């Protein structure tokens, strides 16, 4: 997609920036300022929705790196998030400081992800999806029967995270912590995407035979894609566990994996911004349905009992509608909207 009219560069460095024009930088700065200011004026419920969005953003952008950019479909992402949650949770319970616990959660998950990524050397597309589904089921089993490590069906109870004597024990405090982690994850993936590794990932997705001839070691780069993606999934899991204060294996089921896959598809495969859109969309959707159901319960009393079932139905419907009408995702729609306003009020 071409940049805006009158935007030109005098250095290669300028062209490689994530936000290129001054206007873009201003808007991103304003948006960040709004995000910093906004929780002060919101009630606890809305802040908690924002917190879940931040966690979903990290999970979605990590899956988008693997599935969107590198083309390796993973149905085990929910379980990888679970591995991070349990690993970071165990570290915390053993007295490891919070930042280190999150980091080690990520590293353990990266290792697990790389092991389950090994079949990707031979398996492609739908067959790899089945292999990662096996990873999901194996890990779910481990979560439930992990004894002391995972707490079995009782799960683990965690205290709110503490950093430098400061306790993140309220929604608003967690908000800033999660905001920082989400922003860092987005920066990390954006950086990968504009450098050697990102290009190698996309080349594997688009034409693996010529990627290999061009010097990309297919096996190594697929494993790295699994590793980086799982690392971020583990970070998301660790944060989630510490945020909710309770981890149980049932949270990280196949449904979670599919939700993340749906976020990536709805947002836009291979697009960092799309991951954000998808995460926001699929986190807000059930909450909106809840509010609607509550509003309608005066007229249709039976609806409150069926909210859960309706949510699943709407989720499936939305996914199908997106695949049919917006296969390139919300990121593509966003580009079209920007292109429209760039020329407004003229058509060309």
């Amino acid at each position, binding site marked *: 997609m071409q940049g805006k009219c009158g935007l030109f560069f005098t250095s290669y460095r300028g062209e490689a920036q994530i936000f290129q024009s001054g206007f873009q930088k201003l808007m991103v700065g304003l948006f960040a300022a709004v995000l910093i200011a906004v929780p002060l004026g919101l009630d606890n419920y809305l802040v908690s929705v924002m917190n879940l969005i931040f966690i979903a953003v990290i999970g979605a952008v990590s899956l988008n790196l693997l599935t969107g950019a590198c083309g390796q479909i993973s149905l085990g992402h929910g379980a990888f998030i679970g591995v991070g949650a349990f690993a970071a949770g165990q570290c915390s319970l053993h007295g490891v400081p919070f930042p280190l616990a999150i980091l080690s959660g990520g590293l353990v998950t990266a290792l697990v992800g790389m092991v389950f990524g090994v079949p990707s050397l031979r398996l492609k597309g739908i067959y790899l999806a089945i292999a990662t589904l096996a990873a999901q089921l194996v890990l779910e089993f481990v979560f439930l029967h992990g004894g002391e490590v995972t707490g079995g069906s009782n799960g683990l109870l965690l205290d709110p995270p503490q950093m430098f004597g400061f306790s993140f024990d309220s929604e608003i405090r967690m908000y800033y912590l999660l905001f920082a982690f989400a922003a860092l994850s987005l920066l990390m993936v954006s950086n990968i995407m504009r*450098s050697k590794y990102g290009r190698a990932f996309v080349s594997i997705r688009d034409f693996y035979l010529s990627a290999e001839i061009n*010097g990309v070691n297919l096996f190594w780069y697929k494993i790295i894609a699994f590793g980086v993606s799982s690392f971020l999934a583990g970070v998301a899991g660790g944060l989630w566990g510490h945020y909710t204060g309770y981890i149980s294996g049932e949270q990280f089921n196949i449904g979670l994996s599919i939700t993340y896959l749906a976020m990536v598809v709805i947002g836009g495969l291979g697009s960092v911004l799309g991951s954000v859109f998808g995460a926001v969309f699929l986190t807000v959707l059930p909450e909106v349905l809840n509010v609607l159901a509550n509003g309608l319960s005066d007229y249709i009393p039976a609806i409150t009992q069926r909210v859960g079932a309706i949510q699943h139905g709407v989720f499936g419907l939305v996914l199908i509608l997106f695949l049919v009408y917006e296969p390139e995702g919300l990121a593509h729609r966003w580009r079209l909207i920007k292109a429209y306003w760039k020329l407004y009020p003229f058509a060309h």
Partner: protein
Amino acid sequence: MAYLDVCDVTLTFKGIAALMGVSFTVEQGTIASLIGPNGAGKTSMLNCISGRYIPDGGARGPCSISLDGECLLSLPAHKRTELGLSRTFQNIALFKGLSVLDNLMVGRHGRINYGLLSSIMYWGKTIRAEERHRRRVEDVIDFLNLSPYRHQHAGRLPYGVRKRVELGRALAAEPKLILLDEPMAGMNLEETEDMARYILDIAEEWGVTVLLVEHDMGVVMDISDKVVVIDFGQKIAEGTPDEVQANKDVIAAYLGTEDAAFAGR
């Protein structure tokens, strides 16, 4: 020893022989062409050199392929580019989701040597490396007149331009030997002439040795220093264009023999 030395290469697929004991050599800085009727084994030969196929026996077999004295057969495909080997494909094999610029940057993949952490941090060292390699890619873009397409996605380009981008990606690796698989296929006269000029310039100005597989005989006979003809997996002639054109076996392979034409009567 010749620059590219292909010696006694045999390639079989479960009993079907694609190549049978083919040997030829290419001297440094020259343009050699590999021709033959459809299905003769030309692309199989390129695939053996570039590492997609492993000839029978591999590095331990009777065959050997060496580039500038270094054995290629013991290396996996992705390592061969580091020895200065690059190629284009008959059916365009560009990365559709990347811009032309990024396609060419992938061509330099083996030469960009920062690690994963540098990639994540995108700090000074990474930025300087990216700039340095971008400069080399821009040289290729200038040479092939690709500047109007620099930021366009490769999947949206017209056919002739895609062929040029693929040549550019192979050139961006700064190869010593470049394998071109039918670079003129499907192009109009003007594009064919441009491509022939580029190939001549690659050999003369860039000093790259070229091994060309092509069906356009006019081009092949005009620009080649040497022509190797294979038919049914066997080499039937090797020599200058004039020698090959006069060779009876070559004429028979392309036009058939009188006896064969009347054999059924």
